[in-house]
């Protein structure tokens, strides 16, 4: 089932939770709502669910205007951050709940309910826990039960509110992969709220980034990582080095892709650590900066160099592969040349600029 969010706004007193947010979620898609605390992602999810009502705007579920419908009528499944399992019911009673409260006409027979519960518990691999109470299960197990419970009524949409953030890192990773595979198997439209960008980028078909109630960007993980639309998005998705400076020349005249910007305009350049080239020799076009190595972090798959730019002492971080690092035999204190392989420029206010290939304009 598709979901259309149209011009949703929500205020709590003087605090703006959502400001004119619109997006569309396709049938069977897994969309991640990503953003920092206070960005409005949970509010948006709850509005889609019918647990909150918007001040303005509308929600359409499969083309049907649903904004006034209560949560019990929308045919959604909701998974809460802290599981919200019914602690006075057993696991199987929890999972059966959605089926038991259906009206006489649509309610399945007792046997059918039992079978469906068993089927779901098998799906989440907790069938041997059927008669236990939530208190007796671990966090990861409880969340699996919560998922089974939400899926019991075959909802048209599955909504998850930071479902893994209360769990250990390892459990989190396992559960998110497992959730993705369940999604693929069942094909149900899913919206996932998270503040963990790794989770969003790994699991989702598309990612919508929210900041302070506004939609910053929406696109596939690849798109938003490679082509962030704003400094916020850039910064939110991974580490970044900032270079403040001025455009030496009118960029459009240099024939670079999609450039705007006049000469002498103040700008900020964004470069990811792995996009910075380091070498003991000058590059061919001679455009590089000298930096000295302050610290080397060599544990892990990549080696991270903390550098300080000669002249102004600006701190900069570069990343390179181990092999390259060992070839160069770098030690703290060494002076090396640094230049960006690619750089994204934004003007001082953060509006878009363009993508450069070589280190022009540093």
């Amino acid at each position: 089932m598709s979901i259309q969010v149209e011009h949703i706004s929500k205020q709590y007193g003087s605090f703006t939770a959502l400001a004119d947010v619109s997006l569309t979620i396709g049938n069977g898609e897994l969309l991640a709502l990503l953003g920092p605390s206070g960005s409005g992602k949970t509010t948006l999810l709850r509005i889609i669910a019918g647990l909150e009502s918007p001040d303005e705007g509308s929600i359409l579920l499969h083309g049907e205007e649903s904004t006034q419908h209560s949560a019990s009528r929308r045919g959604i499944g909701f998974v809460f951050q802290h599981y919200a399992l019914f602690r006075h019911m057993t696991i199987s009673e929890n999972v059966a709940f959605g089926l038991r409260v259906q009206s006489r006409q649509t309610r399945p027979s007792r046997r059918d309910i039992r079978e469906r519960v068993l089927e779901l518990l098998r799906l989440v691999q907790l069938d041997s826990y059927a008669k236990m109470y939530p208190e007796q299960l671990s966090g990861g197990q409880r969340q699996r039960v919560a998922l089974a419970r939400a899926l019991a009524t075959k909802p048209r949409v599955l909504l998850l509110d930071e479902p893994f953030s209360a769990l250990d890192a390892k459990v989190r990773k396992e559960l998110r992969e497992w959730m993705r595979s369940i999604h693929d198997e069942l094909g149900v439209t899913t919206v996932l709220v998270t503040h963990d960008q790794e989770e969003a980028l790994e699991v989702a078909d598309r990612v919508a980034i929210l900041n302070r109630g506004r939609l910053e960007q929406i696109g596939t993980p690849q798109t938003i990582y490679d082509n962030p639309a704003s400094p916020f998005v850039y910064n939110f998705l991974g580490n970044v080095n900032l270079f403040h400076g001025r455009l030496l020349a009118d960029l459009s005249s240099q024939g670079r892709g999609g450039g705007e910007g006049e000469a002498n305009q103040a700008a900020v350049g964004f470069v990811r650590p792995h996009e910075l080239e380091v070498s003991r020799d000058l590059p061919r076009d001679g455009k590089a900066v000298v930096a000295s190595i302050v610290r080397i972090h060599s544990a892990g798959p990549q080696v991270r160099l903390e550098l300080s730019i000669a002249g102004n002492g600006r701190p900069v971080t570069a990343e390179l592969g181990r092999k390259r690092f060992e070839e160069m035999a770098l030690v703290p204190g060494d002076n090396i040349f640094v230049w960006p392989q690619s750089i994204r420029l934004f003007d001082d206010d953060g509006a878009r600029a363009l993508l450069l290939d070589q280190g022009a304009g540093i």
Partner: protein
Amino acid sequence: MSSRFAIPSSALLQPSIQQRVGRVVLITAALLFLALFLVLPVAAVFAQALSQGLKMYRDSVRQEDVLSALRLTGLVACIAVPLNMLFGIAASWAIARFEFHGKSLLITLIDVPLAVSPVVAGLMYVEVFGLHGWLGPWLSEHNLHVIFAVPGIVLATVFVTFPFVARELIPFMQAQGSDEEVAAVVLGANGWSVFWRITLPNIKWALLYGTILAASRSIGEFGAVSVVSGHIRGQTTTLPLQVEMLYNEYNFTAAFAAASLLTLAAIVTLVLKKIIEVTSGVHQHMEEKEVKS
């Protein structure tokens, strides 16, 4: 951070007209019940006390019997309450900070006075300290009077009020945890230091709250004290007993006048309790706490 703020649960999901009306009906019913059942009796006390004018009221209150009853009540409270505070602190230290056999039994024992009828409580002390009681002969020999004298009243009051401080402190200290105290010990503090510098400041509001409850109960205790006191005017009548005496003599105005003093004390108790609840977070109900997401 959840963007949910402190909405009363019943407000979720766009309450329908039905639900809104239902809410108003329930609130009205509750308030009506309270007004009828609680507010009216209090109002009646003052109405009756003042029914013959302010001067009569003042004179009734200033009678010697009433004053000495007041003094006795105050004396008993001043002995019983500190004793019970001591007990409360000791019991909660043992129960909240250590694991030992028989802890549940101990907690049950502490709850006994709450389940026992006050008359039975008073009789229990007569059985031990009365003329025909266990210690009766010994006490007469030494010309010591417990029953039908002040010590008996103190004992009976201690019995009915000692759970209050303990029952406030125990869950409070259990919830607080012993981390701070353990840290102090590790840093080299001895027992008393830990208690005075760490424990006491942390529990002071819960302690105060329990003390107010205990004090209020000691002032107001009737049944248990009635049995042990012998009702000797001017000597062993506390204020509640004095109220009964005046009432039984059909001296209604004076009875209600004395009762009004006790009622004022009760109101002060309620106000103090609420103030502590609101300002210090002790015993607080959810809606006054900040909602944490």
